């Protein structure tokens, strides 16, 4: 009976169509064309805002660019990239990436599980409280962080440190604390977003699985290990990938703390170096070369990571 009804409906639909529809609309709304119509805005914005600048940057990296004098200089820009400053920037960016990936994947999972459990009250408040930093202007956040982590004894961070009996720290001037500042700022900023991803992931785990696990006598940790984690795997892969990419692209965290020039380059990141060389020192060709190296680096690391986690196989399954 049911089948018949559906069939009837299908048969009925065309006859109910208004006859005055013009043929262009018909064409655009046809099943073959409509997907392209939907991706069209993306294709346009991608071509203009991403693809074109990327190709342009690639070309610029082989040039010396000065007003009115654009000169092809082959690989010269690339030849001088690999110096101490670049390695320092690469080192900083790598450490930063590792730390942010560790923190921004593990902590949000735990927070998401807590927010999803029945133990926590006022969930909405916590959820929004965690998400608000993502909406805050990074420049404003930078000013506040600079004040909190100022060098004087009276700054908030040093008061806390002093409470535990430690000497005041000159946060913005030592290597470890500089990195700490950048990581803590990024963690504070992106925590809420990642919590949202994991919360969404948790919704898709069937409750029956937990019930049957309980019947099998699994404890809290075993449930987490054998039920929650496998289901969250695609989300974890996704969040880790964007964290890796975001980590190597870090610029604002460093810029708002040190305004471009950090003491002893403790806060110099790859994009910071690109900005310094390309824009501050007016060497756009060299800046573009750094950008291309960064692009290749992120590409390789992401591909390796995705291969290792088997993300490409998902389509074949």
């Amino acid at each position: 009976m049911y089948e018949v009804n559906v069939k009837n409906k299908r048969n009925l639909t065309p006859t109910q169509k208004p006859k005055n529809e013009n043929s262009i609309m018909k064409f655009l709304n046809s099943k073959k064309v409509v997907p392209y119509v939907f991706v069209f805005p993306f294709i346009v914005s991608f071509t203009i805002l991403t693809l074109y600048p990327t190709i342009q940057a690639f070309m610029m990296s082989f040039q010396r660019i000065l007003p009115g004098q654009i000169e092809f200089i082959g690989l010269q820009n690339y030849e001088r990239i690999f110096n101490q400053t670049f390695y320092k920037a690469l080192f900083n960016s790598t450490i930063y990436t590792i730390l942010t990936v560790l923190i921004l994947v593990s902590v949000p999972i735990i927070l998401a599980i807590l927010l999803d459990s029945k133990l926590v009250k006022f969930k909405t408040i916590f959820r929004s409280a965690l998400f608000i930093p993502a909406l805050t202007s990074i420049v404003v956040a930078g000013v506040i962080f600079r004040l909190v982590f100022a060098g004087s004894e009276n700054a908030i961070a040093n008061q806390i440190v002093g409470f535990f009996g430690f000497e005041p720290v000159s946060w913005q001037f030592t290597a470890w604390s500089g990195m700490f500042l950048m990581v803590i700022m990024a963690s504070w900023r992106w925590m809420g977003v990642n919590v949202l991803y994991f919360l969404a992931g948790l919704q898709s785990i069937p409750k029956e699985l937990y019930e049957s696990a309980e019947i099998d006598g699994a404890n809290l940790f075993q449930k987490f290990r054998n039920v929650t984690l496998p289901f969250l795997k695609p989300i974890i892969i996704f969040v880790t990938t964007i964290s890796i990419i975001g980590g190597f692209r870090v610029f604002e965290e460093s810029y708002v703390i040190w305004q471009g020039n950090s003491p002893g380059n403790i806060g110099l990141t790859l994009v910071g170096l690109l900005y310094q060389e390309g824009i501050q020192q007016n060497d756009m060709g060299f800046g573009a070369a750094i950008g291309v190296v960064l692009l290749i680096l992120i590409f390789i690391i992401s591909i390796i990571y995705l291969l290792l986690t088997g993300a490409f196989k998902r389509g074949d399954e």
Partner: protein
Amino acid sequence: MKKKSLSFFSVLLLSFVLLLAACSGGGSEAKPTNSDDVKTAGSDIEDATELSFWTFAGTHADFYANAAERWNEQNPDKPIKLTVENYPFDQMHNNLLMALQSGSGAPDLVDIELAKFSNFLKGDVQLEPLNDLIEPELDKFIPERVSIYEKDGNYYGAPTHLGASVVYYNMEIMDEAGVDIDEIKTWDDYVEAGKKVVEVTGKPMTTIATNWYGIWPFAAQRGSDFFDENGELTLDSKENIETLEFVNALVNEHKIAEIAPGNGYHSEEFYGFMNDGGQASLVIPMFYMKDFTTYMPDLEGKVQIRPMPKWSDSEYQSATMGGTGTAVTSQSKHIDLAKEFLYFAKLSKEGNIQLWTELGFDPPRWDVWEEPEMKEDNVYYQYFHKDIFDILLTVKDNVAGIQISEYTPDVLSEIDSNIMHKVLREQNATPEEALKESADTIRQKMGSN
């Protein structure tokens, strides 16, 4: 069906909006969007020619707006409407680079700081030569003040001041310590006086900025510099190493100096610290008077200016430092008028007198130095003391100049982010090691270009 066509339209609309956004992004001028403050002069005059001006110093903005008012009074036949926009230092220079590189969006006139100036002299210079303004009166200018903005015989910048370095003494602290500042003749005397100050008052004799202010004036006054006349890098020369050793000793050996709060002499932290009587003296160019009157009102009447103490092996009593060059961009639609106004505001005799009376800048034209207007009472005489200009006159024959190279911005950036930090703050490199390492980095860059 209705739903489908609706979604289709929304998609169309969205792509249209995106397209528009992309177009406007490409076509619009590279004009910065968030100017801190804008000053206009002559906006009430009909058919006045519009000129735009970018600067990074609020005090300069007032100066040019006032100059435009005077211009309009004296030139009713060619009035101008001057819009002076004031941006943060880095932002202004970056935006200008972008505008000049891309060929649109630059202002008619712009203030370019010395540390950044050579960035704008690369390639086909997008600034207008000012030779026809400067050359007829070249002998009236202190030559090296115009030559720092020169490339291939063309002068691209109008100097703002001589920038002679002096020492500002906080007399409350010096008196408390019982030091007679007129007895401080050499840097050795300065160190001895500093020890006395620290002992009696517990306050540092001075603070050292971790940027070029903490080394360049000392090095230049010694007759040394970061580049020689042939443009060769001399950052790691014996004299510079000794100079940095001296500065380092002030902080880490004699303990009579500290690192400047906020790392520099133009930070809020420093202004507050100095204003509260935090340090006994400050070595900085004369142009800092304006900062005293603007940001340190509590020190009025307590500060005495003296020439720098001398090095034992050099006769120089001062060194010219810093300096903003005002330029006319090639993108200007009214180049001649802009140049004429620039001459009026800054290069003429009257302009130079205004630089002193309004901004407290030691004028780069020496032929105004003896003018009676220079001795007339103004805010600076009131804030400091009667003979401030006479001090300039006594040192004027013994002022060391500076050498500027295409790579000066690189040197200053190395000083800022590496040298001073490693030597003074971290103390994990000797002055020699730090200077040599940075010099190698810059030589590598110079060699490859």
